[in-house]
């Protein structure tokens, strides 16, 4: 049976159950998504944006799904104390794809702000969810979008009304928890109305020693003059496979800071598509990847400059060791009429072993004639002179390597505007390089 076939059959057999345990706005797109998925199939490596990841292979194993929405016996607030010291956040959990709504924090969100289950929001605010759901993550273009739309039942919904500023950062901890190998299809919808502002931190963890396969689609609307900071941190284990597609649309004068950090994982594929639809919008897209053993991370980005006077900055850094195989492909598209665009794209890679591999592909496509754009990429190893200098001062070889790797990664961390989070990540990255378990205190496992 081909990898696609099992998902096609799964859908046909469980369609009723899928819909019963979800909500109408989500169900409305299911059938079209199914048709698109049948049409597309999993992308082969001949598809430009999937050149570096074997998708069919990742989806081939047979995972269980929790379509019947059986409650998972876990209290994440107890098993999971992943807090960021000195950072007071409104903390929420999503267990697999289910928003954990018991024992909610007594967080005082400003009036009108919604942070909760996507399914519930689709029931209580159907007009809101319908308006945005599935409009950025087109199912006709991408098989992961199609598969996720066809199978997802729940996820997260974040809504910030007009001119509301959420001062306290919102932290979402995605916990993968299961006693059997599990496939999770999580859906996230974030809407910032005009003049809204929010800072968010997404942490992905897996607390059971099981094979997990996650598809995640995040759709983000950043309205006129709205401000979004979104930090995504993956800290899972080697049995984890993640396909995440993030779409963001920015309107006039909006700003967005998106950081994507892969601290520890198994196989990860992150697609990030940003569209600058309104003039004078600014976007910062940064990434940091630390991979060793046989870990794989494939970051594939697109920044689409549709409007004039916009600015984009992109910095991705990779620190690879052992037999890690990673990829970065970033395309910046400056469309006709997007005059006065300023865009910078940088990818820098540090390889610590002969077997580590990075495939890097910065791309720049310009159809306007008055722009300032640059793109570039570097691949290198630790400087011998610096190594010797440090060792001459008595710093042992491994420690010197660690310090140099940390220094390399530091400038991505510096872009994090939340000081406490910045400090916490410094600490976690440091631990990661020391080869200590890169886990938060309280987490049961991360190997």
């Amino acid at each position, binding site marked *: 049976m081909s990898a696609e076939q099992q998902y096609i059959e799964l859908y046909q057999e469980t369609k009723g159950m899928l819909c019963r345990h979800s909500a109408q706005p989500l169900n409305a797109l299911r059938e079209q998504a199914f048709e698109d998925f049948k049409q597309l199939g999993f992308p082969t490596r001949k598809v430009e944006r999937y050149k570096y990841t074997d998708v069919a292979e990742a989806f081939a194993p047979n995972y269980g799904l929790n379509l019947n929405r059986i409650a998972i016996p876990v209290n994440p607030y107890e098993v999971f104390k992943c807090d960021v010291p000195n950072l007071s956040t409104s903390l929420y959990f999503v267990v697999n794809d289910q928003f954990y709504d018991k024992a909610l924090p007594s967080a005082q969100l400003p009036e009108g702000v919604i942070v909760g289950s996507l399914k519930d929001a689709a029931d209580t605010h159907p007009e809101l969810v319908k308006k945005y759901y599935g409009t950025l993550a087109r199912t006709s273009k991408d098989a992961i979008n199609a598969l996720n739309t066809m199978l997802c039942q729940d996820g997260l919904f974040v809504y910030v009304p007009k001119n509301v500023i959420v001062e306290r950062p919102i932290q979402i901890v995605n916990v993968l928890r299961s006693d059997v190998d599990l496939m999770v299809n999580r859906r996230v919808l974030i809407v910032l109305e005009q003049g809204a502002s929010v800072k968010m931190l997404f942490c992905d963890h897996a607390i059971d020693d099981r094979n997990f396969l996650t598809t995640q689609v995040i759709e983000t609307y950043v309205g006129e003059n709205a401000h979004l900071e979104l930090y995504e941190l993956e800290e899972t284990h080697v049995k984890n496979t993640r396909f995440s597609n993030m779409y963001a649309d920015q309107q006039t004068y909006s700003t967005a800071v998106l950081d994507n950090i892969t601290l520890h994982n198994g196989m990860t594929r992150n697609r990030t598509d940003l569209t600058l639809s309104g003039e004078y919008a600014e976007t910062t897209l940064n990434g940091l990847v630390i991979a060793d053993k046989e870990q794989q991370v494939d970051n594939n980005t697109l920044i689409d400059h549709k409007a004039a006077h916009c600015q984009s900055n992109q910095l991705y850094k990779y620190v690879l060791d052992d037999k890690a195989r990673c990829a970065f492909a970033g395309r910046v598209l400056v469309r006709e009429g997007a005059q006065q665009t300023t865009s910078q794209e940088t990818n820098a890679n540090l390889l610590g072993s002969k077997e580590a591999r990075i495939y890097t592909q910065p791309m720049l496509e310009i159809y306007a004639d008055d722009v300032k754009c640059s793109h570039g990429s570097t691949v290198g190893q630790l400087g011998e002179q610096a190594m010797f200098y440090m060792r*001459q001062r008595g710093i042992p070889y491994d420690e010197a390597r660690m310090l140099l790797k940390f220094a390399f990664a530091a400038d991505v961390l510096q872009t994090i505007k939340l000081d406490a989070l910045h400090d916490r990540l410094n600490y976690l990255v440091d631990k990661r390089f020391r080869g200590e378990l890169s886990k938060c205190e309280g987490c049961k496992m991360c190997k």
Partner: protein
Amino acid sequence: MLEIKNLHASVNGKEILKGINLVINDGEVHAVMGTNGAGKSTLSNVIVGNPAYEVTEGEIIFNGKNILDMKPEERAQEGIFLSFQQPVEIPGVSMTNFMRAALNAKRKHQGLEPLPAGEFLKLMREKRKIVELDSKLANRSVNEGFSGGEKKRNEIFQMAMLEPTFSILDETDSGLDVDALRIVAEGFNKLRTPQTSAMVITTTSDCWTT
């Protein structure tokens, strides 16, 4: 303290040192002079164990131990220090983290606990004054953006922090103006004790008389 016997060394297969013999006793400061390319820097690099240099014959005894089989960091922990002719810039590694790693590695070697943060910073402040480096030093990356004079003063500062028993100053005087030279020379003299020795490599003969 240091005894070099019939030392031969080569770089990229080319023999540079052809049988050097040298004895440096406790408390002595030796000057090594010679024309450019004579092998002065090669000698210092071989003593500290730079992997780019290959010793083909002879031995180096430091306080009774043959150090040729030791890694560079082990030699440093034993008390050998090289003030680099061209100090290396290490962007992203702060002086504080760098010195803390170096000092604690040495303390570990001596069987001591790491120095508590407060005491460490106090020590940094004290030693910094010896070479008149300003307080911003702690947050700056190692040698990055330092002027030529600052880099040399930074070498002496590190020497003050690590308190080596044997120091090699490889043209620490070169490229310094008179004031910087005075600071570096005075700093070095303050650090001398009857138990420490040094080897000063220079191309000029009058600099260390100040």
